[in-house]
């Protein structure tokens, strides 16, 4: 088994080796299973089982008060099928938010979507601009990098309280702008206050990741473009963006998924039950806090499906583009290897990015 580890991991592949591989990889499979089992067990316990329980929970509703048929006070919960899901169309829970009088679920749903689109768009533009500036610099890059990590390292809830003070009605933001906007009242400015705080926290990190991508572009490509007479804008559109795209898409994907589950920022800055900034996470949390576990689970499952759907679309679009950029792919092994490398390449980017977020 020892030799198997060594031989099999060798990157070069040839026909005779393949015959041997099957005989030996059985042992590796067993070893892998042993090594992976703790991780998979933990994931099963802390992710797998809760999802199943959550789905189960979403099909139940707590009994409240007196049963009209028997006249007895009932406790516990009863199976209601998909009622928790269909209820979001019933419009029993109307609230007045930024989108007129609509169901509280849809209000939160639209808030979540708009937060995601607005924040990610601004973060990406600002992040790429930062990366371009940093890439140009010869000196002081380390200094800027240190500065950029500051927003990232501050706990989200702390940054929420910090921005709460900045956006206070007699706070420094109004003083600088010379305005008297009630930023943190349940109103439109609150939405933008949260967006500003979120962009502040995460745009630098997108910049950092994009910079890592930018630095892999060989200078020769730009020189060739210059010789061909391309101006700065053309270079940016035709060279920089396509070549930095794999890194950027991963970063944007993770930011998108992270913003979709945003909780800390609106919670800390504006508070609970504020319909202008209430996200699906906050809404579900509040429902759970009032013992309405059934609807809360239903909302969280919808959020889960929504996130999975967006991730799937991202990967689909990303995957299509990877194939489109590359030379006609020889299927099977070579392609797989490249994907492996891609995965490895984006691994740390992804891991770091997934933690750069503000929930």
């Amino acid at each position, binding site marked *: 088994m020892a030799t198997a580890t060594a031989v099999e991991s060798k990157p070069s592949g040839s026909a005779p080796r393949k015959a041997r591989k099957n005989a030996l990889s059985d042992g590796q499979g067993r070893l892998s299973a042993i090594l992976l089992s703790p991780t998979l067990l933990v*994931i099963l316990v802390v992710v797998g089982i809760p999802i199943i329980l959550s789905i189960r929970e979403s099909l139940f509703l707590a009994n409240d008060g007196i049963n009209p048929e028997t006249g007895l006070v009932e406790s516990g919960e009863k199976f209601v099928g998909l009622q928790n899901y269909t209820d979001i169309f019933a419009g029993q829970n109307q609230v007045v938010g930024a989108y007129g009088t609509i169901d509280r679920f849809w209000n939160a749903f639209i808030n979540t979507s708009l937060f995601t689109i607005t924040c990610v768009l601004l973060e990406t533009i600002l992040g790429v601009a930062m990366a371009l500036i940093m890439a140009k610099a010869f000196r002081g890059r380390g200094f800027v990098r240190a500065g950029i990590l500051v927003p990232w390292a*501050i706990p989200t809830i702390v940054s929420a309280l910090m921005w709460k003070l900045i956006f206070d009605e007699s706070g420094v933001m109004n003083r600088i702008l010379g305005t008297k906007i009630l930023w943190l009242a349940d109103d439109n400015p609150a939405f933008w206050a949260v967006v500003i705080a979120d962009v502040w926290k995460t745009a630098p990190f997108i910049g950092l990741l994009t910079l890592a991508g930018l630095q892999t572009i060989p200078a020769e490509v730009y020189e060739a473009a210059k010789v061909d007479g391309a101006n700065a804008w053309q270079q940016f559109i035709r060279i920089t963006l396509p070549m930095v795209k794999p890194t950027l898409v991963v970063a944007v994907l993770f930011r998108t998924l992270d913003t979709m589950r945003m909780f800390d920022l609106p919670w800390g800055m504006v508070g609970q039950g504020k319909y202008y900034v209430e996200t699906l996470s906050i809404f579900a949390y509040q429902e759970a806090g009032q013992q309405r576990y059934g609807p809360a689970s239903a909302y969280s499952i919808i959020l889960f499906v929504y996130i999975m759907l967006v991730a799937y679309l991202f990967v689909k679009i990303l995957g299509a583009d990877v194939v489109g950029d590359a030379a006609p792919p020889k299927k099977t092994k070579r392609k797989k290897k490249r994907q492996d490398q891609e995965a490895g390449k984006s691994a740390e980017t992804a891991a770091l990015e997934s933690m750069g977020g503000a929930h």
Partner: protein
Amino acid sequence: MSTTTVEESTSQAEIEKLAHPKRSRKALVGMIASYVGMAAIVIYCILPFYWMVVSSLRLPTEGRSTEFIPNPPSVDNFAGVFAGTNNFGRALINSVIVSGSTTILTLIIGMVAAYALARLKFWGKTMVLGLIISCSMFPQITLIIPLLKMFSSTTPFEWFPYWINTYQALILPTLSFALPLAVWNLTAFFRQLPVELEQAAMVDGCTPGQAFRKVILPLAAPGVFTTAIITFIAAWNEFLIALTFAPDPSIQTATVAISKFTGTTGFDTPYGTIMAAGVIVTVPLLLAVLIFQRRIVAGLSAGGVK
């Protein structure tokens, strides 16, 4: 060879000029612009944090003051943080316990998994990787609702021990995002190590276990260390899980404690105290990040360069 050609065809003056290329005005403007841009980035990132620090250094009664320099400066807020009802010292210890245990557990469990993912060949590896990375994108709220019912042993979980206000109720759910993060990160680090070193060790008579312990682990130490920092920060910054499962002040973590501050000054939101607590919670992380920023960012770009 080309140099000789140039020498033959150009005058002395022209050589001088070529040897010292004049900075064009455009390049100069570009350079200044890039420095201005960098200054703008740093100011953008630092300024709100500066505001937090400044606000923490005012008198407790001047929490909402908008002076750019505290007048008079005071550290009363920092004393206020640890005063009486806030229980902040306890909260800091809780944070260290929860984040520390999470980090240690995550590293132990994650390291062996990452080794298998980086080195061994087995069926379904892509699937496992996909599963792990998708777990880290998972909305925490979906986990929290059933776990809240379970940990508070309400129907239908009467058989489950009452876990609200326990450390395990904070640590276990935190693993749901910390473990995928660590496995993913460590896999990338292990992949970068040349497999030949391990082979050499095994030729010299090491078992795979020894090869891992004596060769791979010391070499991967920077990667493991970086992963530890990242995991610790992720666990330290966690809010939603701690808010849900630790309503008792004696068990809550620092992030939750800050969000519930009533401070020492009474009715008004005690901004000064909150900001001071924010500084206390943030500064250790900032120091760690600034000291190891090169390592964090180098690890980040290593994947790309490779």
